[in-house]
Every structure is written in C-alpha cells, then in structure tokens.
C-alpha cells in the first residue's frame, strides 16, 4: 500500500467520500431515466398518456416508492463481490485510511455503471441498471482485489453470485416475459374481437395506466434502495455512520429525489426504441405487456428469484408483438438489444477496472479526483453526441422507419 504523504489530515478521505456520494447519486439519476421506458414506453406509444404526463406520473410514483422502502438494503454488493459482512458492515480489512480501498472500489464500480448506462442511452438501448452496477463493481473488484474477491457463484442450490444473481436470471427473464405477454395478448385479442373500438380504447387506456403505475412504484421501492445501500456502506466504511440498521435521512431524501428527477427527465431515446422501435403497439397490446411486466416483477420478487425490470419489460413488449396476428417484432432492433444485454456486465466491468487503475496510478489523493473528472468528461462527450440526433417528447412517437413516399404528409414536430 502506498504511504500517504500527510497522515494527519483527513481531507483526502473526505473528498473521496464526497465523490462517492455524488457519483452514487449520479448513478441513481441515470437509473431513473434509463428505466422510465420500462413503465411508460407502452403508454406513451399508444397515447394512453401524453409523454409529459407519463414521465410525471412515473417520477411521482418513483419518489413515493423510494420513501416507501423503509427496509435497509445495505447488502446490495454481497450479490457479486466480497467486501461486506453478511450483516452489511464493511469487512474490517478495508477500513484502513478511512476505508480508502473500499471507497475506491465502490467509486470505480459506480463510474463503470454510469458510463455504460449513458452509452446504452446514447444508442437508445434498454439495458439493466442493476446489471451495469454489478458489472462495474465486479470490474473494479477484480482490478483492486483480484478475481478471488468476486463471488462468481452461490453455494449449492442457493442462487447467488454473478451466475446465480445476474447471468441466469438475465437469461430466463426475457423468455418468461415473452411467453406471458404473448399469452396475454393472444387472450385479450381473442376475447375482445368484435367489440366496438371505442370501448376497447378507453377500457385498455385505464388498464395500461394502472399497470404502468404498478411497475413505476415497484421500481421506486427496489432501485432507489440500492443506491441508498451503497451510499450508507460508504459512510460506514469511512466512519461517518455507525449502524447497519438505519439509513441517514438525508441519504434517503437525496436518493429519492435523484431517481425521481432522472425519471422525470425521461430517457426519450430508450422510450422511443421500446415503444415504437421494437413493436408497433396498440392499446390492448400495451395493457397486456404492462400487466405481464407487473405480474412477473412482483411474482419474481415474492418467489425470491428477482428479475431485472428492464429485461422483463422488454421481453413483454416483444411477446406482445409475437402474440398478435399480424403483429411484427423488428428483429434487428431486438438483436441489438440482446447484444447490449450480453455485454452489459463485462463492459461496465472493463470501465470499472480501467478507472480503478487510473485511480491507482495517480495516487490516493489525486486518484479519486482524476476518476471523477474522467467521468464528467465522458458524460459531457456522450451528452454532446446525443445532441446530433435529439429525441424529445415532441418526436418520441414519430414513425420508426422514415416514410417511404416523399409526398407523405408530415405533421410539424
């Protein structure tokens, strides 16, 4: 371990802690806008809700959801790496120098997750924020502590580790969701065939709003908790907080606001891909897809086989295209998504590992700042790129393919 130049001062540790908290909140924000599409893409595409109304509803429910989660989700990293005890407290070997080693691993893991979240947003691809977070943490852990500090697989039949908590659920969830949504769509169309259009549209409109709200609320309770857990872990490791049974109120408020604000900003590029790109959705399909998502997310969490909201929502939308006669799934779009899912864990991991090395080379004082500055630079670069072809509430529902005939009437954006 490198000897710190001035042992008496606590300032570098405080800066590191501050950067971890900021970065965690930034991750929470990207988590919000990346996942708006999971709940609201179908309602926006079928015009059950206006784009602005949809993101507002989703943001409010995420905010409420974040406050509903009173339970302490401190053990979030335990799924994939070994830096915490089973009760959530950090392992004592990482507590030297104000928890510097542990904080660096968390910081770099978060940076890996954010960079991957932003890159997939730039490409308009839905990808799981929890997979990105786990990927980033695995990467920075391999870099900082070696591969043995990663929990690759669980013991026996207890689902745990990278394989049991990330890879296998990731493989199963889109298939389950597609089957359920396909069945739902088929049943709904069969039962409602021949019914006057006016009854269908208004009825399914309410069905869609209700189910989408359930997905939003459950997202708020689950995902905001993860960031709260990460920040509290960092606070404990640096000695700023002492109990594993409670979360500081300001952490809860900050995380709830970050995820709600992110949701409100709306990842329009991803909403467009999921609502218009993958399948052309009608109101009955939208309701079938969203009910399938809500049922699977809640059932999987009840049955202890937690699935990624993103994978479930995307699988459901795909299934609703398959379940309808004449329905069409754009397989090119689906294939791009699938590739993004497959490489989420390793990609976020590579970024997490690279920034850890950057932080290591530049030393314990400058390192965290260098990592954070790099994150800001990359974020800025990707944001500027997104400006070339902006997607916003005004054009989120435009036709996916450019109109064939040049004479086709175009409504002003």
């Amino acid at each position, binding site marked *: 371990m490198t000897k710190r130049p001035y042992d008496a001062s606590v300032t570098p540790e405080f800066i590191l802690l501050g950067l971890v908290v900021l970065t965690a909140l930034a991750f929470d924000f990207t988590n919000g806008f990346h996942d708006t599409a999971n709940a609201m893409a179908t309602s926006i595409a079928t015009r059950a809700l206006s784009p602005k109304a949809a993101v507002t509803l989703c943001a409010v429910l995420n905010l409420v*959801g974040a406050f509903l989660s009173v339970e302490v989700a401190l053990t979030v990293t335990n799924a994939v790496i070994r830096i915490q005890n089973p009760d959530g407290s950090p392992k004592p070997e990482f507590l030297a120098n104000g928890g510097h080693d542990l904080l660096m691993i968390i910081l770099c893991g978060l940076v890996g997750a954010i960079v991957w979240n932003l890159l997939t947003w730039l490409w308009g691809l839905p990808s799981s924020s929890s997979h990105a977070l786990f990927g980033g943490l695995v990467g920075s852990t391999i870099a900082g502590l070696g591969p043995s500090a990663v929990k690759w697989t669980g013991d026996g039949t207890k689902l745990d580790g990278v394989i049991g908590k990330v890879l296998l659920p990731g493989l199963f969830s889109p298939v*389950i969701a597609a089957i359920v949504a396909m069945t739902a769509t088929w049943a709904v169309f069969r039962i409602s065939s021949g019914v006057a259009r006016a009854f269908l549209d208004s009825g399914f409109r309410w069905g869609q709003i209700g189910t989408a709200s359930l997905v939003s609320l*459950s997202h708020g309770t689950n995902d905001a908790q993860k960031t709260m857990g990460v920040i509290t872990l960092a606070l404990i490791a640096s000695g700023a907080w002492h109990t594993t049974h409670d979360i500081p109120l300001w952490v809860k408020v900050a995380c709830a606001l970050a995820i709600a604000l992110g949701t409100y900003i709306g990842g329009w590029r991803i909403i467009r891909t999921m609502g218009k790109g993958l399948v052309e959705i009608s109101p009955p399909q939208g309701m079938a897809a969203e009910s399938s998502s809500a049922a699977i997310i809640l059932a999987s969490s009840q049955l202890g086989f937690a699935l990624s909201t993103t994978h479930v929502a995307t699988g459901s939308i795909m299934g609703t295209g398959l379940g309808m006669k004449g329905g069409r799934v754009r397989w090119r779009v689906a294939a791009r998504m699938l590739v993004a899912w497959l490489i989420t864990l390793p990609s976020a991991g590579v970024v997490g590992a690279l920034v850890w090395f950057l932080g290591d080379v530049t030393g314990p004082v400058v390192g965290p700042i260098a990592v954070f500055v790099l994150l800001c630079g990359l974020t800025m670069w990707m944001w500027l790129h997104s400006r070339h072809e902006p997607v916003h509430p005004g054009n989120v529902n435009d036709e996916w393919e450019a109109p064939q005939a040049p004479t086709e009437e175009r409504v002003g954006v």
Partner: protein
Amino acid sequence: MNQVIAAADGAWRVLLAGLLLGAGLPALFALGIRQLAAAHVPDTAGARWHPGLHRAAAYVSFAVVVLAVLLGLSYIVAHGFGYVITFDGIIPVVRPKK
C-alpha cells in the same frame, strides 16, 4: 450446475404465477370490457338481450382485477416496510420478513 437447477426451479414458478396473473387478469379485464360493450349494444341479433346481466358480469370482472391490483400494491408497500405477504391459508396475511 446446481445454480442452473435452482434458477430453473425459480423460473417455472415465476412463469406459472406470471401466466396466472399477467395473462389471466388482462383476459378477465378484456372479458369485462366485452360485457360492458354488450350491455350497450346487443351482442347477437335474435337472442334475448339482458343488458343488466352483462353490466353485472362486467363489474364483477373489473372488481376481481382491481382486487388483484390492490394486492399487488399492498405487496409493494409491505415489502418496502420489511414485511412479506404469505398465502398459506389462501387468504393473504402480512408478516414480518423471516
């Protein structure tokens, strides 16, 4: 390998619950809409038409769907407060986790 078996074990349970709730409830909802429409417009010409019956059937369908949604909602809330809902005696009961 054990992990794959455990995952498959979880997956079929989720699939079953998903089909029951995720496909069954929308189907029931669609049935309600069908009945509601039938209460306004005669379904088939010739047969006796009972708008009241159709309306009642529609409301029963919707009521079941709403109950299921409320159950889902209470699940989310209970989960957030560290409780689980168990179905041992069919009637849902809220209990502290483990």
